[in-house]
């Protein structure tokens, strides 16, 4: 997971706000109805599917058959602010734990990259 966005839509007189987040999955973990967050590119660099494609069983099947090991999809983000804050706190604590102790400069750069990734994933 590495991004989120907010979309608005009208239902009668009510205005709803739906927040989405992007997650990465093995094709077998995907479900019909999920929406591709980005184009799917195969190993040879061919674009197989465009961003915005709605997945169904047939598409998921074809992705596996084409050797695709990971896809990014947008899913509704139904987490409460408290849940997100707790997930972020746990993620930052885990990163601090596994990077405990002294290390060299290259390790420190990796530490920064992983921490940034976890923070973005838990926004």
């Amino acid at each position, binding site marked *: 997971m590495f991004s989120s966005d907010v979309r608005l839509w009208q239902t009668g007189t009510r205005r709803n706000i739906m927040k989405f987040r992007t997650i*990465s999955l093995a094709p077998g*973990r995907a479900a019909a109805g999920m929406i591709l967050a980005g184009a799917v590119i195969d190993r040879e660099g061919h674009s197989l599917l465009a961003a915005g494609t709605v997945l169904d069983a047939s598409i*998921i099947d074809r992705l596996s058959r084409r050797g695709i090991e990971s896809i990014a999809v947008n899913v509704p983000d139904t987490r409460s602010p408290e849940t997100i804050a707790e997930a972020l706190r746990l993620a930052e604590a885990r990163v601090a734990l596994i990077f405990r102790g002294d290390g060299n400069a290259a390790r420190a750069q*990796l530490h920064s990259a992983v921490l940034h990734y976890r923070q973005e994933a838990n926004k």
Partner: protein
Amino acid sequence: MTIPALDDLLSHADALPSLPEIVRHLMRSLNDELADVDTLAHQINADPAIVARLLAAANSSAFGLSSRIESARQAFLVLGVNRVTGIILATALIRRFDTQTQDFDARLLWRHTLGVATCARVLAEQTDIDPEIAFTAGLLHDIGQLLMFAAAPEAYAQSLALRKNEDISILLAENTVFGYDHAAAGGMLANAWKLPREISEAISAHHNPDDYCSSGNPLSDLIHVAEVLSHALDLGEQTNNRVPDLSERAVASLGLSWQSLTGRFAEIEARYDGIRIALGV
């Protein structure tokens, strides 16, 4: 408690099951652009246990296929030679070396090696290194731990306890108890198994590639970076995971940049999840 010298370690290699013949063959075919599906499928069919595991993995939820795969040939055609080769190598190794005792659980080791293999494959895709050779080297990089445990289970259990209790690296713990470490032991075993030279060098160098950089083997640098990245992304790691030091030279020599690689961390995690499910570890 008897601790074998490094030079005597291979005499204990008989305690380890031999590398399955199909694994040796697949390693050779990794470099063979002429290897064809029918020949590979024919050879795999000679080992029904491997066929059964291949079909179980191919039909697992990891791939989400709508129809069942019924044969090794069909698996090659549907999933591709590279992916099936990776699955066969991993399943053969994991099942063949399935040690589980109170002191040593090979399953935990295989989860880590799958993480390193996945990172190695993704990193290789950013370089000129063959991703399948990188995956194989990742799978084998800790084979020295299995040899040391097979040769001296009590001493190896002591190393694991020392690592945990003192919160030190496995390398330091092994060196304290044995006087050598699993990278040296693994490289020696890989030579004895006559694995490709670049893979045995990568096994020897995966913790200290700067000591081996004169060999000019980029696979050694790649497996080292994959090892550290797998720890950093916590792929299959234990609660006491600690990220080891990273060679700045290795990262630079491969032309890798964390700025661009961060965008692939989620993909690495998803690919690791998929292969872990497929292999049932």
